[in-house]
């Protein structure tokens, strides 16, 4: 009996010892998380890359400063919009650019580059890489490019020239080598798998970037621009070929504007309002697109106006009616110190925020709104400039210009483009005096200079493409705009000229990649908002305080809003009162 118990004990003990001691086999299996994925297809990665790009470029950055820098928004608050920055904001932007977007996009290239079954899809990823870097380099200047996305501890910054050279080459290769009948990107969020549209996107983007750097790097620009425009079949040639990104109706894919301003019923101080000078340029030329882009004010101002009596062209009467469309200047109600202005002469004085025009809700505040990367209208204006630069193109600059206006009208579903194109200032070769702005300093007039006409129309046609128009203004300096008169106090400025760039993130790059950052700052010559980029045109900012003699509140934005005659009011169906 005792022996049996003893034997049992021995067996049990041995079992337990054996149980406890096994070697290191199966260790790798134990340390693997079976619920995450060791592989990802290009489709699975690319959809995430696109929505992340859309949320960052079309959502956050547009809202934070691109749309203000392009003078599409007016009076928007926040340190970025007031020509300053927040360190945590900058860190966030770089994380989203490099970790969420570029690394995952690069993964497609790294993993599938050598697989012939994926050639087109790798080119698509390379097109996207060039697109995103084109935004980075024209926003910040030199940025990490060649050594980025490699998991390195220290990543050097590459010069503007290096980056532009490489992305233009990549776009050229993509255009030439995408095989329309080759592999397809299933679940393609941009073109639904149409490879020919990807070719067109690559080539049009190439032309667009070439134009963007035509002042900073003229020969590089001409080389690529002329090749791109020579391949005219591979340019966006109708509104159905517009390159767009679209948000979605599911909560996780809601547009920035809807999540931030509609879903939470944001208060009137934070929602975006359209820019005064932007709306002024629509008003001056009685542009039918205005009602497609702007929401009429919920609290319009009542003005007294002098118009010709109905049927007469000599007798004038005074009428009173409501103005539904007017915008906010960049600095809201701020003026420059030293200007001795009588606030009572300003119709906008003391107006609550909600009175200003907002962007059209149906187009720009829906959960699944669209963001334009390149439109047909814009492509025409680019071709018009390319023609002026003698890069090529089968039509004349004038024809491209008119094509662009037509395309834009079609895009917004507006009619009356024939009449519009005939107006003084809009018509090629004509001049217009235009309306004076709020302070009487800049006007909406257009000179006979072709560049003035083309850029002005491009601005009006490209609403919400804040980054693109900021770059156009930095390159041409030709849009009639005022500066930010209410800059953030930390900037130590009384008024802030248009930023040349955005600064590098001080905390994440300064703390984690400092050596490379300092080298880049030395090469660039500084790290402020006003350190010029090579792509920017040289420019002397206006000294607004010296204009105190000529500045005065001007109410042109409200004068003769519908026309100079009572008949115009009747035609437009406006209720008015004769005084």
């Amino acid at each position, binding site marked *: 009996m005792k022996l049996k118990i003893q034997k049992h004990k021995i067996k049990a*003990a041995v079992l337990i010892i054996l*149980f406890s001691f096994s070697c*290191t086999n199966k260790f790798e299996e*134990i340390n693997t998380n079976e619920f995450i994925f060791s592989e990802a297809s290009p489709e699975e*990665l690319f*959809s995430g890359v696109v929505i992340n790009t859309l949320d960052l470029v079309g959502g956050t950055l547009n809202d934070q400063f691109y749309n203000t820098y392009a003078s599409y928004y007016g009076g928007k608050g926040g340190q970025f919009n007031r020509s300053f920055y927040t360190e945590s904001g900058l860190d966030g932007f770089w994380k989203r650019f490099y970790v969420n977007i570029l690394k995952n996009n690069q993964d497609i290239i790294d993993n599938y580059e050598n697989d012939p079954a994926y050639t087109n899809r790798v080119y698509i990823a390379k097109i996207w890489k060039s697109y995103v870097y084109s935004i980075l380099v024209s926003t910040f200047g030199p940025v990490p490019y060649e050594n980025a*996305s490699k998991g390195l501890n220290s990543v050097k910054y590459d010069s503007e020239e290096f980056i532009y050279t490489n992305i233009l080459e990549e776009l050229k290769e993509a255009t030439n080598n995408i095989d329309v009948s080759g592999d397809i990107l299933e679940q393609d969020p941009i073109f639904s798998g149409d490879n020919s549209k990807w070719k067109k996107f690559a080539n049009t983007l190439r032309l667009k970037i070439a134009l963007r750097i035509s002042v900073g790097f003229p020969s590089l620009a001409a080389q690529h621009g002329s090749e791109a425009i020579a391949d005219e079949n591979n340019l966006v040639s109708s509104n159905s070929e517009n390159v767009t990104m679209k948000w979605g109706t599911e909560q996780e894919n809601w547009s920035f504007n809807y999540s931030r301003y509609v879903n939470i019923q944001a*208060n009137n101080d934070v929602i975006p309002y359209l820019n005064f000078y932007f709306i002024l340029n629509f008003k001056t030329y009685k542009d039918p697109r205005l009602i497609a882009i702007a929401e009429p004010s919920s609290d319009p101002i009542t003005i007294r106006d002098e118009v010709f009596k109905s049927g007469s062209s000599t007798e004038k009467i005074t009428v009173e009616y409501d103005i539904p469309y007017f915008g906010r200047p960049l600095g809201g109600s701020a003026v420059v110190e030293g200007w001795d202005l009588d606030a009572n002469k300003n119709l906008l004085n003391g107006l609550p925020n909600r009175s200003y025009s907002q962007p059209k809700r149906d187009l720009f505040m829906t959960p699944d709104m669209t963001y334009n990367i390149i439109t047909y209208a814009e492509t025409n204006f680019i071709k018009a400039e390319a023609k002026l630069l003698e890069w090529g193109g089968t039509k004349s600059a004038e024809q491209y210009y008119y094509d662009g206006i037509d395309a834009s009208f079609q895009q917004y579903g507006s009619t009356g483009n024939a009449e519009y194109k005939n107006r003084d200032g809009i018509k090629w070769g004509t001049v217009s005096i235009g309306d004076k702005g709020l302070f009487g300093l800049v006007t909406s007039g257009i000179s006979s200079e072709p560049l003035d006409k083309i850029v002005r129309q491009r601005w009006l046609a490209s609403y919400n493409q804040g980054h693109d128009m900021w770059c156009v203004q930095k390159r041409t300096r030709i849009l009639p705009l005022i500066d930010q008169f209410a800059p953030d106090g930390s900037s130590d400025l009384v008024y802030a000229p248009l930023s040349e760039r955005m600064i590098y993130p001080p905390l994440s790059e300064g703390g984690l990649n400092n050596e490379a950052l300092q080298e880049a700052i030395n090469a660039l010559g500084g790290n402020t908002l006003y350190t010029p980029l090579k792509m920017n045109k040289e420019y002397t900012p206006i000294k607004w305080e010296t204009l105190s003699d000529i500045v005065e509140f001007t109410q042109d934005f409200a004068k003769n809003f519908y026309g100079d005659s009572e008949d115009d009011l009747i035609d437009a169906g406006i209720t008015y009162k004769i005084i």
Partner: protein
Amino acid sequence: MYRNGSQRNPANNYMYMTPNMSSENLFPYKDENNNAFNYEGDFNNPYWNLFENSNQDVTNRVVANLTFNWIILKGLNLKTRINSAINKVERFEFNNMGASYDPDGLYREISTSVRNSNYEAILNYTKKFNDFSIVSLLGVNRFDLRRSGTRQTAISLLQRDIKSLSNGDEFAPVIYLPNNKTINSIFSSISAGYKDTYFLDITGRNDWSSTLPSFSNSYFYPSIGATTIFTKFIPRNDIITFGKVRASFAQVGSDTSFDRVINAYVEGGNYNNTTWLQLQSQRKNLELKPELTSSTEIGIETKLFNNKISFDATFYRSSTNNQIIPVQVTPTSGFISKFINAGEVQNEGIELFLSAKIFDNKFKWQTDVNWSKNESSVVSLADSVDRLLIRNFFNVGVYAEKGQPFGNLRGNVQATDPETGTPLVLRNGRVRFESDQLLGNAQADWIGSIRNSFSYKGFSFNFLIDVKMGGDLFSGTMIKSVNHGIHAETLPGREEFLLSSIILGETNNEREGIGLFGNDYADSNRAKGAIYEGAALGVEDANGNWVAERDVNGNIVYSERWLNPQLKGFDGLQDQSRYVYDASFVKLREVVIGYTFQRRIINKMKKVKNIKLSIVGRDLWTIYRNTPQGIDPEAGTTSGNGQGLEFASFLPTRSIGVNLKLRF
């Protein structure tokens, strides 16, 4: 429980509340449609968060032990043991519909099941011969950790008040929560004693861990120690009743957590009818090595005056090599953070303990005092880097810096004139700052505690006082409260500024002392708002350094630039040193009042040997602190590395409880 800057954290809501709000403004907090009222600015009603959001944790735990003991021979036995604990945790988080920050509501369920098992077999051998005694063992152990779990989130709900996933309208991707680990070990130890006076201990252990890569998953660590009970060979005396001296050198190896070796993809969301994936943003390390801590220790334990007094002291120095920590990296690398073996961190210090039985009769009074001091220093970091960022908040970072104590805080500080230390301002009177300056360190100079225990007949009373001296705390709560103007610190200068700007209509220039026509402003001595006392305008000298403005005679021109106090408050974001406080404290940590029932009463109850009833109070009183009212010096944004930052932390809670202990 929501922490830090979450809109759902009532302590954070409080920082956006204007001081003149009363309960009339806050109740009711929702309208007839059960939607939260919207307030101006970023304010969310904390009562909404308290009453409409809820969470719960339910844990079920089963513990099992199985032991076999087999005496093989005299002095040789085999003990085998299996321990297993299974924890099942069901947790939910509920945000009701109608919140101003999330009208659709949210419901999240986390369900995990964790099994911890140990299988051990130890062969023990003891032998006594002559004056020697030997106790030795050889053992093997297998440790298993297996966890499975899911986290499911409904990001919008169908109806209010229903806390269930079936009430979900849209869902985030399901996240699985595995956590698996196995460590196999073999270990051995020998303790030899001579005449019960001299002892020598030697141990050795080798672990194999599944969490490290296959070529570096085995690590060995020994230790050696010697002890002498010196009172055995010194002449008997009335002072030292018992004394022991020990010295040891020990190494401890350590592995890391599950899944830190291979990078993989996780679900990111669903867009365009495609479930998209993204690379994990924390870069894992294919070359992870085990951590190793080596420590040397010398200690003495004494009992004096016939055991009336105990005095212990320990000196130690330890260095941890290859500590496996996540550190932040430049996002341009494609990752946000990565796991590294961090180089070497050294800690050295002293621990002292003194216990005295002051009275020991019917009335007993015993005092226990602890005192310790630890100094850490980062000897080297990986990849010949000088500095690693551990954590950051509000642009204040906690760093491991080579040659410095671990956990330096760095941020922006007001610039000063290099020669005189005069603070500098900008042309508009606001702060001129320098970035990346040293703000302090959370590590204490010393910590200690004192406990006094009293007992008389059946009653007992003891209280514990905790002390920490030194250490810095950066308060994000103060920055926000000042930014929002709800803190009394923002009052100075308000009336003066309103008089100046609204009533008198003075311009910024005039507040800076410059009249309309470039002349000196006549009323320059009157206070017109807030000002940086004793500050000067910062100007660049010939070498590009920022120095104080001086007049033709070389004297400093003090700035008379009056500011809107709101802007001076906002400057706190650029002058973070303002909000770094000394985190020293003295706290009444615990008070226990107890009563042990008398024998007579207990003897009447069969089987019960002892009954003790006590009332315990914890964290009753902060006797001394240097942080502002409402900021607990022990607050923090995290419980891990990266101490010294606080934001919207809850106030310390006082707790009072009752214990009843029955012994059968």
